């Protein structure tokens, strides 16, 4: 269970939002919506502990995430704006390294299976440099087929994906929630995702 209480965010010298809070329990899906620059990405980074809230607290299983990173981080998978790919490594190497770093000791076979799940098994041995924007995004998202963690935080996962990939990803998210996972997501697109309970958080300028 993830609880955010009374969060406020300041970037530069601007207050982006304040008094933002929510509770997310197993099987729950939270949409974070808002215009460009309203602070969606900043909120997600706060929830990951990458950005310190100006005010407020975040709890995972009733413990502050700040003081309890050791238990929180293995349960968290975050895929941000950046894909986290090294141009000079192949798609396979990139994915494998990301997974290992996140604590999932995956084999080549598992990695390849993840890549083919999202439909880019053919690019597995190409260096990330030559992949198109959408292909890169898919490699980053293939992580979702490898991770064991319960809480997924995804920043515009559907950006740059075509229709087929969007569908595959939405299905995967539905599965995750069905298994008792939680997802927090920002998106500008309208994609149907199955979840036991769906919440929406709207940030305003």
């Amino acid at each position, binding site marked *: 269970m993830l609880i955010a209480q009374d969060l406020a965010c300041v970037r530069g010298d601007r207050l982006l939002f304040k008094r933002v809070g929510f509770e997310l329990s197993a099987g729950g899906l939270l949409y974070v919506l808002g215009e460009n620059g309203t602070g969606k990405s900043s909120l997600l980074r706060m929830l990951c502990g990458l950005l310190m809230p100006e005010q407020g607290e975040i709890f995972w299983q009733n413990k502050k995430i700040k003081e309890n990173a050791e238990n929180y981080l293995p349960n968290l998978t975050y895929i941000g704006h950046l894909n986290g790919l090294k141009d000079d490594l192949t798609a396979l190497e990139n994915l494998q390294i990301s997974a290992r770093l996140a604590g999932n000791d995956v084999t080549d076979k598992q990695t390849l299976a993840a890549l083919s799940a999202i439909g880019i098994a053919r*690019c597995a041995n*190409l260096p990330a440099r*030559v992949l198109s924007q959408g292909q890169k995004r898919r490699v980053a998202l293939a992580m979702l087929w490898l991770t064991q963690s319960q809480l997924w935080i995804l920043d515009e996962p559907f950006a740059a994906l075509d229709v087929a990939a969007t569908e595959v990803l939405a299905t995967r998210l539905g599965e995750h929630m069905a298994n008792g996972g939680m997802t927090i997501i920002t998106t500008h697109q309208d994609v149907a995702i199955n979840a036991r309970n769906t919440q929406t958080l709207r940030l305003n300028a």
Partner: protein
Amino acid sequence: MQWASWSAFFNMGGYAFYVWFSFGLTALCLIWEVLALRKRSQQALRLSQLLAQD
């Protein structure tokens, strides 16, 4: 012919190390360059083959 025997030839009048190292290194570098280029062109072909399958 300059050399009384093969061993004299290899000995190079006492300068064996300097002479043979020079020639050996030169040969090594040049051969390495050729082999490296071979490999590079094979890799390039393999990569474009992968791209072509797309």
